[in-house]
């Protein structure tokens, strides 16, 4: 299976990746954990507008175990394989690395020979993953230049920290071991990404398995015990170099989106909720005089609501928080998409000037109070914009509605199902729902979306 030419989905720069052909299908994490007796799995959704099954699930891959709880996943290899110091451009973007965040089991799923009929090719059992990595509850997967990096929420034994990052071998998918050599006082984990050209890794904080596995713990939230810091690491020395505390009130720092152009040294982080006023916020990290700084660049306020319309978890507050759960940055670093899972809105910000984001577009769908329907669905919709994925050319945005099994039940207690929608992007800014694209997964909930050939939160680039 040696390739003679580089995998055609690898691009030296983000600018070139934007010229890539449109994606023809998506892989979507499907969850039955906590809902029924079915296993989780991967669903293949047809995205080819010329196909007769456009916008439909064309294949369902069920996992052999129950209660894995799929969440995030990623490709084994991407454009970072072209990076000059460890190039292996003849690796294939072929396997999906799919962690079960509840079971700590890792599935390696082969998308060849038929990309629409992926198959499980390897399973790393929880015992092996935990023994070799020292971690449990694997989460984010990123294809690095030298290995596959996976973040994990908890330590191998028990429901507490520290969470961190471990490495998988690119070729054999063996667990190599924990990544950190010196973690300083970092203990909470969640997302990570990097500035490859700067040798910098950035990590964020959600909470320990004890704090999320059985649902959001209100006392912990009000006690400001969830993560509120962001960490900058020396990617080469695998050592913590700087930590920034956003303030205890800024609870749960989740997705991290560094600029794709390797010459830019800034990125965006989303904070779910402020315990002061229920607002959500987006922060910009940037370098000043050799150190990292963080500025709050977007604040999204809560919306007042009748207690009758609110789930028990929010009744006392009289308002619905935006709950920013995911953000995503287009490959040209121009548009930042922000999921407001609580209020049921997807925001598009023009971040050409990253210090001064401008709201450029907005769509409303779902939401705790509004339950706004889709043109193709007659009924009110539960859940809201959550995992966002942007096509490489930046013209299409897809998103799903599930956050995390137990949290879905707290905020959308009326037995929320799964759906996926698509948004069309005006090149000059502005977004609208595609009225013909609504994938109804029924009772099964859906989480992360990965697009054929890569997307805006997969590839990293070493060339400008």
């Amino acid at each position: 299976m040696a390739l003679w030419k580089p995998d055609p989905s690898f691009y030296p720069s983000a600018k070139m990746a934007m010229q890539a052909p449109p994606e023809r299908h998506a892989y979507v994490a499907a969850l039955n954990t906590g809902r029924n007796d079915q296993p989780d799995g991967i669903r293949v959704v047809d995205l080819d507008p010329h196909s007769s099954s456009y916008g439909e699930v064309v294949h369902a891959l069920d996992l052999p175990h129950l209660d894995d709880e799929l969440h995030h996943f990623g490709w084994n290899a991407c454009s970072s394989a072209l990076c000059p110091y460890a190039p292996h451009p003849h690796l294939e973007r072929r396997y999906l690395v799919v962690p079960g965040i509840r079971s700590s089991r890792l599935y390696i799923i082969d998308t060849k020979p038929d990309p629409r009929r992926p198959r499980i090719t390897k399973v790393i059992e929880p015992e092996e993953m935990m023994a070799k990595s020292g971690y449990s509850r694997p989460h984010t997967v990123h294809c690095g230049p030298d290995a596959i990096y996976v973040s994990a929420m908890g330590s191998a034994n028990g429901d507490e920290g520290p969470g961190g990052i471990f490495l998988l071998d690119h070729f054999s998918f063996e667990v190599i071991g924990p990544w950190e050599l010196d973690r300083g006082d970092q203990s909470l984990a969640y997302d990570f990404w990097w500035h490859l050209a700067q040798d910098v890794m950035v990590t964020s904080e959600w909470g320990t398995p004890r704090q999320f596995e059985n649902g959001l713990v209100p006392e912990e939230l009000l006690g400001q015990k969830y993560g509120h810091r962001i960490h900058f690491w020396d990617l080469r020395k695998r050592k913590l170099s700087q930590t920034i505390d956003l303030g205890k009130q800024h609870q749960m720092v989740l997705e991290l989106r560094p600029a794709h152009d390797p010459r830019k040294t800034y990125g965006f982080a989303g904070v779910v909720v402020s315990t002061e006023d229920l607002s959500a916020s987006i922060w910009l990290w940037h370098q000043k005089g050799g150190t990292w700084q963080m500025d709050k660049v977007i604040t999204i306020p809560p919306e007042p609501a009748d207690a009758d319309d609110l789930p028990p978890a929010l009744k006392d507050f009289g308002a619905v928080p935006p709950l920013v759960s995911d953000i995503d940055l287009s490959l040209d670093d121009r548009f930042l998409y922000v999921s407001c899972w609580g209020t049921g809105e997807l925001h598009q910000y023009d971040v050409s000037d990253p210090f001064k984001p401008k709201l450029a577009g907005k769509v409303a769908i779902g939401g705790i109070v509004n339950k706004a329907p889709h043109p193709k669905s007659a009924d009110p919709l539960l859940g809201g914009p959550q995992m966002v994925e942007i096509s490489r050319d930046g013209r299409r945005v897809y998103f799903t509605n599930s956050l995390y099994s137990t949290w879905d039940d707290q905020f959308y207690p009326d037995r929320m199902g799964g759906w996926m929608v698509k948004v069309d992007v005006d090149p000059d800014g502005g977004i609208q729902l595609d009225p013909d694209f609504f994938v109804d997964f029924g009772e099964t909930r859906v989480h992360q979306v990965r697009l054929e050939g890569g997307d805006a939160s997969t590839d990293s680039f070493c060339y400008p």
Partner: protein
Amino acid sequence: MLGPLGPWLAMLGFGAFHGLNPGMGWLFALSLGLQQQRERVIWLSLLPIAAGHALAICLAVVLVLLGLQVVSLTALQWITAGMLLLFGLYKLFNYYRHPRWVGMKVGARDLFLWSFLMATAHGAGLMVVPALLGVAGSMEGAHAGHAGHAGDGTSGGLVMLGAVALHTGAMLLVMGATAWIVYRRFGLAILRQRWVNFDLIWAVALLVAAVIAALMAWS
């Protein structure tokens, strides 16, 4: 064969071949120049890369000279052929394995070490040992009848250094030319279209070198 000129031409050819390999340095230099938006950086980065590569070749020279103190030229040729065969076969099936060395923010020292590490781990020095033995063989021939090994050692060392310089010079020239053409003419898109599996070619080159060493020992 090409007589006494053969080993020198081989050192030159291997130098050009090593220089052409994107994994040996020109691509790294190019990316640093693009990152810092300064063309000068490309050319300056090539120097420590070439020096690191030269050190790896020098290491092979030292091993060859030490080896010749212990065993005969023919025996060393057979040993070299065997090692090249084993390593070439290993690389043929593990051509994608590279040393882990994370880092894009590098200075001259880093580039020097990186280049030395890459050349050594990929067997760049081992690959040129048959040519080095050829150089040593032609010296032995020229010095036949003369006595005194110590004198031979010193002048032999100097001649070997000349071979290393020739190899490194050719490598530097090809690296520079390749980086220049990609930078000025083709742009990065060429990486997608023309980056053939050099790692596989490299493994085959090791096997070819094994055959050459064996033929030299045979004759």
